[in-house]
């Protein structure tokens, strides 16, 4: 498994969140999650301008095997989506933490909600618990 970048926070449901310099939050799914799903063939993106709520489903990733909801790690307004995934959903398989980002949120309650997210070590532990 690829090393998990240290600046990411995670949900147990395998989404990652990165707070950018401008305070916006980029969201994707973890390398572990893409491995579980297998070859991705479709991504249903939210729309720019959508209001999302932490813990609610706001995107869908589909592999040949299964469809999986992507939950918002934080609340706020969607300010960008990775429309390149429309033609190349496999980018998530190839680079889950980089080019495979899914959407960006302008957070409305970041300080409180980020407390709920896991740091990389805690996420790695939660994956191990899941597997045993």
């Amino acid at each position: 498994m690829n090393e998990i970048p240290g600046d990411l926070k995670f949900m147990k449901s395998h989404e990652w969140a990165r707070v950018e310099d401008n305070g916006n939050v980029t969201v994707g799914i973890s390398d572990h999650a893409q491995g579980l799903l297998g070859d991705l063939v479709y991504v249903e993106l939210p729309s720019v301008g959508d209001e999302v709520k932490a813990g609610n489903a706001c995107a869908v990733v589909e592999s040949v095997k299964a469809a999986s909801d992507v939950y918002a790690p934080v609340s706020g307004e969607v300010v960008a989506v990775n429309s390149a995934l429309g033609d190349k959903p496999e980018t998530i398989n190839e680079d889950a933490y980089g080019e495979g980002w899914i959407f960006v949120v302008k957070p409305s309650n970041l300080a409180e909600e980020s407390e709920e997210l896991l740091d990389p070590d805690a996420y790695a532990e939660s994956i191990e618990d899941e597997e045993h």
Partner: protein
Amino acid sequence: MTQKTILNETHRALGAKMVDFGGWDMPLNYGSQIEEHHAVRRDAGMFDVSHMTVVDLHGARTREFLRHLFANSVDKLKTRGKALYSCMLNEQGGVIDDLIVYFLTEDFFRVVVNAATHDKDLAWIEKQAKAFDVKVAERADLAMIAVQGPNARAKVQSLLSPATREAAAKVGKFAAIEGDNLFIARTGYTGEDGYEIIVPEGDAVSLWNKLKDAGVAPAGLGARDTLRLEAGMNLYGQDMDEAITPWEAGLAWTVSLEPGRDFIGRAVLEKQKADGVPRALVGLVMDEKGVLRHGQRVATAQGDGEILSGTFSPTLGKAIAFARVPAGATTGVEVDIRGKLVPVRLVKYPFVRDGKACEGI
């Protein structure tokens, strides 16, 4: 208890992601199921199908027994090695399993049935065989490797002795030959040419490794499922089961209603055919992005149906499916995907044959 084929360690050593399939620990993929799919369509791939059940039937009345047991007619089998695809029905005309039967001699036929239906199939066959004095012998000592793709036959032949190679090169589609202690059938579940090779367990790992060295790509159950659906082939338990007749499963072509043969389920099939079959199995293609999946609701002017097998077709780059819908549905068909109705086209399948999209797909 999970069962393992003789190739289990080999799969694990190749880094396979393993899953439970009908009680068997089987490879889902060895990395990318889409790459494995393309390997079979473009070159050659191999599947461990040793979980499937080989049953040998012996006895003077074996042909008579099989005329009674199967909805297709074994009277079509006249030369040694010839194969036939058939359903085995219950008294209500429902499908107990689908299978391939090989004719070897008048007192020896070989049947290959599904893994997930092993127990009920054997119980049914043994129960029915008593009246015909046919001996039912499961061959758990045999493994099976399916080698499929445009270059599959050449790659297998390169590993055979001259005499067996010649026989294997000559054998026609849907027939088998024997040689080099192998049973080599020109059959498959992918829509490509190739062989299904039945091999003694003790020789299976060595055969697998030789095939790999000859350039045959290991492929898992994930690719097997996308390949067979593209090829328009039914999967037992998903596309038909004991509550479904062959008429409703797109398997009318496998039912032989020649006069004078009283097979199990025949009376119900004849009645349903005369009364009109209420539902039909159809092929669907979705031109919009997304994936069709088992269980999704299919809306038609004639009423609702549902997706049986659905997937993303790696060859076509779009979603395809089998659905069971009310008879007569043709146009204006939509599928409910997470609450949104998405238009789909109802098409004649197979979707893909010999590496290419079929006409109208």
